[in-house]
C-alpha cells in the first residue's frame, strides 16, 4: 500500500502550543481555624478535575487534614458554602503530599524535579516542554513571603528562581500562578522567566479577607477570592471559550474588599487569546489516524508454559536504595571550645592593656 499520508488540517494546534495539563495545588496552613485554606485548595482541585485534568496530573499538597479532624462536626467532608451546600472533599480525592510532608523543600523539589529516586510517580511533576501548568498557593502570607506550616517560609525570590530553573529545563510551556494570601501580589513581583501569568487576591499592604463563617462548623469556610473564583469556574465547561480577561475580572473590589492583581507582561501570548481551559482543563488535541499497516503474518503461538512471574508492588520500587542509604553528611561545626577560646583571647587582651592587677581578682 502506498505511504500516502494525509495529515488533517491543524486548526487547533496553533492556538496554544500545549499537549497536556498539570496542576500543583498547595495549602500551606495547619490548624483547625485555617479550615478555609484547605477548602480553597479543594475547591480549585474539584474544578480542575471536573474540567478534565486527571489525578495522575495533579499534585495536591494539603498541610493539614480537616476532613478527619477531631473538631469537624461532619467528618469526611469539607464544605465551601455555608449551610453545607457543597462538599468539596468528595469521594474521589487523592492527596499527594499531606500533613508534615508539605514543606518548602518538598514544594521546591516538586517544581524543579529534584526528587529522590524512591519517589513514586504520583508525587512527581512529570511535565515536559508542552505542558501548561497551573500553580495555586493559599495560606498566610506577607510582603514577599508565604508561610508554610507555621514554622518556615518561602520567599518570592526563591519562587522566582524555582520557576527559572523550570524554564531552563523546559518543564513548562505556559504557567499560570494563582495565590490567595494577604499581600499576595508581592509573591509575583520577582518573576523573570518567560511565559508566566500570575494572579493574586490582594495587593501589597492589603489583607485578603475570608468569606462567611458557618455557624455549625464554627470556622470561616472560604476566602473571598477563591469563593468567587469557584463560582466563576462552576460556569465553565470543557468546551467553553472563556478567556483570561474574564478571569481577571473575578472578584472586583466591591465583593473582595481587597484589590486582586494580575501580571501578564511575561506572558508571550495575548491574555485574551488564552482560554480558561488551557490551564484549568485538559482539552486534548486529536488527529484521525489515516493510515494503517497491512499485517499478514499469523500470530505466533506464545508458549503457555512460561512461568508466570508475580510481582509485588514493593518490588517495583528501589527499596534497596532506601534501606542502604548512606547516613546524611553532617555539617562540620566548629569545636565547642572555639567561642570559649575567642572570649579568653579577648579577655587577655583587655587585661593586658588595662593592667594585670585586675587579673589577680579573677584567679
Amino acid at each position, binding site marked *: 500500500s*502506498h*505511504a500516502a*499520508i*494525509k*495529515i*488533517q*488540517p*491543524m486548526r487547533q*494546534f*496553533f492556538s496554544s502550543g500545549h*499537549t*497536556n495539563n498539570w496542576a500543583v495545588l498547595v495549602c500551606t496552613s495547619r490548624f483547625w481555624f485555617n479550615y478555609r485554606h484547605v477548602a480553597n485548595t479543594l475547591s480549585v482541585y474539584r474544578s480542575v478535575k471536573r474540567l478534565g*485534568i*486527571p*489525578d*495522575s496530573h495533579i499534585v495536591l499538597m494539603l498541610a493539614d487534614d480537616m476532613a478527619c479532624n477531631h473538631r469537624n462536626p461532619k467528618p469526611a467532608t469539607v464544605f465551601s458554602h455555608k449551610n453545607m451546600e457543597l462538599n468539596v472533599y468528595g469521594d474521589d480525592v487523592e492527596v499527594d503530599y499531606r500533613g508534615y510532608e508539605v514543606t518548602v*523543600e518538598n514544594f*521546591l*523539589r516538586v517544581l*524543579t524535579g529534584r526528587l*529522590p529516586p524512591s519517589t*513514586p*510517580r504520583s508525587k512527581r511533576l*512529570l511535565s515536559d516542554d*508542552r505542558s501548561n501548568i497551573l500553580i495555586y498557593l493559599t495560606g498566610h502570607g506577607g510582603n514577599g513571603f508565604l508561610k508554610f506550616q507555621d514554622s518556615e517560609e518561602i*520567599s518570592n*525570590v*526563591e519562587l522566582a*528562581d524555582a520557576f527559572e*530553573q523550570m524554564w*531552563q*529545563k523546559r518543564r513548562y510551556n505556559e504557567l499560570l500562578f494563582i495565590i490567595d494570601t494577604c499581600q499576595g501580589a508581592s509573591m509575583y513581583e520577582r518573576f523573570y522567566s518567560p511565559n508566566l501569568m500570575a494572579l493574586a487576591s490582594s495587593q501589597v499592604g492589603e489583607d485578603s479577607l475570608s468569606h462567611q463563617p458557618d455557624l455549625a462548623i464554627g470556622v470561616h469556610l472560604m476566602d473571598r477570592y477563591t469563593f468567587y473564583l469557584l463560582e466563576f469556574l462552576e460556569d465553565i465547561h470543557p*468546551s467553553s471559550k472563556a478567556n483570561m480577561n474574564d478571569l481577571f475580572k473575578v472578584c472586583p473590589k466591591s465583593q473582595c474588599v481587597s484589590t486582586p492583581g494580575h501580571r501578564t507582561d511575561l506572558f508571550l501570548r495575548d491574555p485574551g487569546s488564552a482560554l480558561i481551559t488551557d490551564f484549568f482543563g*485538559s*482539552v*486534548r*488535541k*486529536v*488527529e*484521525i*489516524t*489515516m*493510515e*494503517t*499497516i497491512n*499485517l499478514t*503474518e499469523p*500470530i*505466533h*503461538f*506464545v508458549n503457555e508454559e512460561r512461568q508466570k512471574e508475580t510481582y509485588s*508492588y514493593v518490588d*517495583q*520500587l528501589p527499596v534497596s536504595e532506601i534501606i542502604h542509604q548512606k547516613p546524611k553528611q553532617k555539617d*562540620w561545626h*566548629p569545636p565547642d571550645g572555639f567561642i570559649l577560646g575567642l572570649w579568653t583571647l579577648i579577655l587577655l*587582651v*583587655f587585661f*593586658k*592593656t588595662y593592667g594585670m592587677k585586675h587579673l589577680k581578682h579573677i584567679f
Partner: protein
Amino acid sequence: IIVGVPLWWRTTETYRAWLPVSQINELSNLQLQLSAEVEVVFARGTVTPEQQKKVPLTQIQDEEHTVDGDLFINAVCLVVTKIRRLQGNICLKCVFSRGHSFEVQDMDVYVGQRRTALLRIGAQMRVGKTLDQLLAHLEPRIKQVLQVMSFSHTDISAALSDRVRLSPGNKESIADSMRTFKSSPGYEITFSLLNPDPKSHRLHWDIEGAVQTYIQPLLTKLASVANFSIDSQTLYYAMLGVNPRFDSSLSAYTLHSDSLAHVINPVEARLGSNAASSNPVLNFLLYVPDAHHSPLYIHDRKKQEVPSNAFHSPRWGGIMVYNVNGFYGPEAVFPVDVNINMAKVMGVFLAQLRLLLGVQSSTAPSGFLVAPCGSNGLADWELDRLMWSRSVENVATATTTITSLAQLLEQIGNIVINDNIAEQVSSAVTSLQLAVAELETGNLRFALQYSKEAILASERAFFDPSLLHLLYFPDDQKFAIYIPLFLPMCVPILLSLLKIVSDARQKRREKQAKKD
C-alpha cells in the same frame, strides 16, 4: 585574627567540587557537523564508458544552515560514485527510463525498504549530453532524495526546538514536533481493552501473541534508540465520555471528530501506570462499543467515515473503535464470545506507534514512491532518520542542561556541589564531545550511544536531590545573625586597640621629650 578569620571563613564556606566550566562554555557554542555517506551507482547504459572514467570519485557538498543565529549546522554529503555496491550506506541507482521498469509513470524516485533508492533520469538526458550537464542535473535530485532519507533542515530544526523556539513556519513540522514524544531513555507502552458491556460481549484478545508477532520486532529494531516496556490490561464498564449520535442513513452510531477530544479524559483517570518509573507512557486503547450502541463509526470533519476507525492524540497514544456486531446475529444468546482480529487491530496501533515515536515522516515530495515498511514495521532508512534526529536532539538537550546547570551553580554561590555531581558533569561533557565528533564523521550508532550517555549523565547531575537552593539569605538577615555574636566581642577589642595606640603615641612623645 590571623587564626580566627581564616578558620571562620573555611567553616562557613560551602563545599563546591571543581566543574569544567571552560569546556562547558565551549560546548554552549554548539557547532554541529552532520555528514552522511552516499553511494551513487550508475546503472548500465546510463553513462558511456568514456564518461565513466571521468566521473569524480568524491564530491563533497557543504550546506550551511543557521538556526537562530548562534547555531551552525553543516550538512556534508559525500557523493561517491562507484560501480560496486557497499553495504550500510545509502545507495542510489540512477537508471534511464525504459518504459516498463516503473509501473507508475509519474514517479521518479522509488525509495526501498533498506537503504536503497532508485532514481530515474528523464529521457531528455539520454543522448549527447556531457558529463557535467548530467551531474548538474543529478545534484539537486540527489540532494532531495537525501533530505527525505536521512535528514533535512526542517528535521534538524525540529530536533533542536528545545533550544530554539521557532515561530510557526512550516505547519506540518510544528505538528510533527508536537506529536512525537521527546527523546527519552525508555518508554512504556500500555495496551488496554475497554469493554463497557460485559453482559453482552465476552471478548478474547491474544494480546501476548500479537505483541510478540507484530510489535516486538519493531521495538527490537528500535532497541538502540530506547528501552520499551509493554503491559496490557482489560477494563470493564469503561464508558466513553461522549454520547454518540444515531445516524439513520447509515443505521449506525457516529462520533464526530469535534467530540473526540473529550473522549480521552474520563478514560484516562482509570488507566493505571507503572508507579516506579518516570518514563513517558504511550496508551493504546481498543474500545468495543456496547450492544446498544453498535456499530460505532468515527466521522471526520467532512462527515466521511474514517477507514481505520481510530484516532490518536499527540504525546499520549491512540484509540481504536472495534465493532463486533457483525460477529453475531440478532438471535444470539448473550453473552457472546468474540475473538478479536488482532492483525487488524495491531495494524492500526503499529501505524499510530510509528507516528508517535517520530518514525513516520511527513508527506514525501511529489514524484516519490516509498515502499511499504517491512514485516518489522520499520525501514532501515527510517531508523537512520530517527537516529539522526534523536542524536541531535540528545546533544542539544544535554548541552542546554549542562550549560544551565553551570550557570545556575555560578549564580547561586551557596549551593553545595558534591563530588558525584562534578563526576557526572565531567562525564557528560566528555560524552558530548565524543558524540559531536562521531556526528561529524557520520558514525550514527556511536553518535547515538554517546548522546544517550551524555543525556543520562547530564540529567542525573541536574536533577540530583542535593542541589537544592534553600539558603537564600537576604542581607539584612545576615547582619541580624552576625551582629549579636560579634558586637559584644568587638567592643573590648576596639577599646583595647585604641588604648594601645594612645599608649604608644604617649611613649613616643615622652621619648621625644627626653631627647630634647
